């Protein structure tokens, strides 16, 4: 930190504070405003984050996923659930098929945040995801700490390519989902900006 401080102190000349230099500062501020606008526009093209998991837990339910989604959207991070795809398909009056909905969500998402559950379909769904490399590669899996060492009935978790992320409780899970989403968004943004250069 002291290096940054020394560097800035050396770079900033006293004449920069004079009123005559206001146009120079103003031009720099305009550059930042332009850069910010460009980033906001780029963010609009972000494919989005799929929040996936059982909705039938007492705490980790559809309301929970929707609340995380809203917080991400407020942070300019596009996010959606399979329920959003279902609603969209209903609107277009196309036939609704659970497998097609899941496939569309997994295909469209930039990354998938999968919260492991104990519902009946969990094993079948995760097997389907793990079997397709393209989906498995973009999946981050969140597992309750109480399920650590859960044994054979959670053996399907071993098939995921990314390291499992453990959470203590629902509050911890929310923080982790938001942090990992924003980190992924930032990585995507850097990649796109570098690609544009």
């Amino acid at each position, binding site marked *: *930190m002291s290096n940054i401080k020394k560097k*800035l102190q050396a*770079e900033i000349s006293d004449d*920069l504070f004079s009123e005559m*230099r206001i146009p*120079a500062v103003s031009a*720099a*501020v305009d*550059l*930042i405003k332009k850069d910010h606008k460009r980033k906001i526009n780029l963010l609009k093209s972000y494919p989005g984050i799929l929040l996936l998991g059982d909705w039938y837990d007492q705490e980790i339910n559809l309301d929970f996923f929707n609340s995380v989604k809203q917080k991400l959207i407020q942070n300019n991070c596009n996010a959606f659930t399979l329920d959003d795809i279902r609603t969209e398909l209903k609107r277009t009056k196309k036939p609704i098929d659970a497998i097609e909905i899941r496939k569309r969500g997994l295909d469209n998402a930039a990354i998938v945040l999968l919260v492991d559950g104990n519902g009946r379909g969990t094993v079948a769904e995760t097997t389907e995801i793990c079997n397709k490399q393209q989906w498995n590669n973009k999946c981050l899996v969140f597992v309750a700490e109480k399920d650590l060492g859960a044994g054979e009935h959670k053996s399907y978790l071993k098939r995921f390519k990314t390291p499992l992320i453990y959470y203590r409780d629902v509050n911890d899970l929310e923080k982790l989902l938001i942090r990992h989403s924003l980190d992924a968004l930032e990585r995507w943004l850097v990649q796109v900006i570098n690609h544009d250069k």
Partner: protein
Amino acid sequence: MSYSELMDWQSVFEDVNCVRALLYLAKYNPNTQTMDLQKTLSLNSNELDVVLNKLINAKLVFFKDDSLTLKDSALIALDNFVNLTGLTKKAVLA
């Protein structure tokens, strides 16, 4: 960083007087008197209030006994700003 914090930072770095104040504080920290800041940047009382409110809301400074000290996060952000805009280079060349 939450969305509201991000917006607070944005309002600082999109305000010419705030950026001038950050530059001054980076040069003359720690414990810079607000009166010195006001005098050097030729700010009127209203302008100074706006600058102080924005810097404090964005949690970029410590404010105590009428003096300001930049937080480390502010130094990093200002350094990024300077690198991105080339502001200090322009000032030297101009």
